[in-house]
């Protein structure tokens, strides 16, 4: 077991193991640290932070669905200033490897956020969330349009400076996700986070209105795993040189292996943490055991293995 190489890379960033939290599914990290040391994760991906404090959407914000859930949190958070003052130093002190996720309402927001983060030490990579389905101007989800997707990532690239890898988080709610992926890579993304939640709706048959106050929400959990596997597979087939942080309904090691075989170099655990705070640790242990059992000598060897042509 000790000879197995579990390390992975996203762009130029190196991680001890490939299991991360998913943005928005680990609070500030403090809550989960009650259950396991955050340093045992490949990385903590923070909630998507915005320029200013944000109340998020009204409640109800959540509806459980078969093998999943809808959420419409709406990026509730303290804004970049308080985040940099409180969250980052705390995570650094815990020994966590940190991927900061950012979200903006405009291209200019992304530029400013990148400038604010440029000189912050202790960050391994930047996730550029251009695909949150729960912002009010849903019609302007950056990742649903190649032009806006490109503009947001370009703004970060121009302003981040240095070596910090940029990982663009994409929405599966598009006709050709590989096309959007090509655009953001051309704009300077070093990696891709696939996938954000799938837009959905639940109607309460008692009140006969949408269950969520925000009407629509993002579907997550095992229900969307095949969508994630498909998206990762399609993008890896088109852009095999670009690292993918995969996510979508991963609950155990087998699920994570599926995403790795499709082309993910690292895997985030999100909704599973709500049901089991130890989920990421379970996935980490089980994935390593599975990779060894399948005869791989390293994590990197398994990435995209489902694409091989030999029979």
């Amino acid at each position: 077991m000790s000879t197995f190489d579990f390390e992975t890379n996203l762009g130029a960033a190196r991680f001890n193991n490939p299991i991360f939290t998913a943005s928005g599914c680990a609070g500030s990290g403090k809550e989960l640290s009650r259950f396991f040391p955050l340093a045992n994760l490949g990385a903590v991906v923070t909630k998507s932070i915005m320029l200013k404090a944000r109340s998020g959407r009204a409640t109800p914000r959540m509806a459980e669905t078969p093998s999943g859930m809808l959420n419409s949190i709406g990026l509730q958070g303290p804004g970049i200033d308080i985040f940099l003052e409180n969250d980052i130093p705390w995570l650094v002190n815990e020994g966590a490897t940190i991927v900061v996720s950012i979200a903006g309402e405009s291209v200019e927001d992304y530029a400013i956020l990148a400038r604010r983060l440029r000189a912050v030490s202790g960050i391994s990579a930047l996730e550029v969330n251009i695909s949150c389905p729960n912002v009010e101007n849903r019609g302007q989800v950056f990742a649903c349009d190649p032009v806006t997707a490109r503009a947001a990532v370009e703004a970060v690239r121009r302003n981040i400076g240095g070596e910090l890898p940029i990982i663009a988080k994409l929405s599966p709610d598009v006709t050709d996700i590989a096309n959007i992926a090509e655009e953001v890579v051309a704009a300077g993304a070093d990696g891709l986070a696939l996938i954000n939640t799938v837009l959905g709706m639940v109607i309460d048959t008692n009140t006969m209105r949408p269950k969520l106050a925000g009407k629509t929400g993002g579907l997550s959990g095992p229900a969307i795993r095949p969508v994630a596997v498909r998206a990762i597979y399609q993008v890896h087939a088109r852009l095999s040189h670009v690292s993918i942080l995969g996510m979508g309904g991963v609950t155990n090691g087998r699920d994570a292996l599926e995403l790795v075989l499709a082309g993910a170099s690292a895997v985030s655990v999100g909704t599973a943490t709500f049901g089991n705070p130890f989920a990421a640790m379970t996935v980490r242990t089980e994935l390593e055991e599975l990779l060894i059992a399948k005869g791989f000598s390293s994590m990197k060897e398994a990435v995209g293995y489902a694409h091989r042509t030999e029979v």
Partner: protein
Amino acid sequence: MSSINKAATNILAEITSNRRAGAYHHIALSVGEMAAHVRPGNFVAISVGGEASSMVLRRAFAIYRSVDLGNGQGQIELVVAPHGAGSSWVCSQLVGAKLNVIGPLGTAFGIPTEPVRALLVGGGYGSAPLFGLSEVLKSRGCRVDMVLGASTAMKIYAPLEGKRSVNALTITTEDGSTGTQGRVSDVIPDIIDANNIDIIYSCGPMGMLQAITDIARDKGVVHQCAVEEAMACGIGVCMTCVLPVRGEDGVIRMLRSCIDGPVMDGESVIWESKRTIPEGTWGS
């Protein structure tokens, strides 16, 4: 912003008893050391449906009572309403089955240092955490009045040992099938006046908590309530169970009922905000 209950642990807890109590199930779980850390108002989050279940989220249940048996042994008791698929699954589990439990979670009712005159108000199975609270208050020399309300007699949860823990119990039902016909808010004002109530503790549906907050404000009485918001995780990571709360600095923030609650100062909660973010909320 506060943090997760420092005593919270994740355990497999064996069911030692599961019996029907009116419209509800009374379920006892062997939880070891956890019992020693439970305070009235705390809750547990339980996985439902078994390993291959399509229900991916935990269900939150208020703790009715905890019994610390010493030597790292103890049990907690829950009163569960088989409302939906998850709670029905919990109620269907047999003695000897093991449940995946995280607890204790959330804030607890504040216990006054002086003997005071307390009124405890429960709606439906919301009465459950009030009996443990009553025992603690009585042990501190407090006088305890209790009002329990529900739509109908079957939905009043008032076990004999619970009744013994209060000085006076008033029951209201909307259909009049037992006690006074009406709602708890119909009888509370007179009880506050007659007994010079200093503090109200409540647990039940949000509409009831709002009505009690109005009465408490009118009468100048402190009101601590345990709120009930739908939760996905119970441990503070999902941000779904928030509600608008005015802080001591006057600023309204969307606080998590699993971490900053469930027990909150009734007066600080912005009850009117149903399905909206109140104007002026931080970050709106």
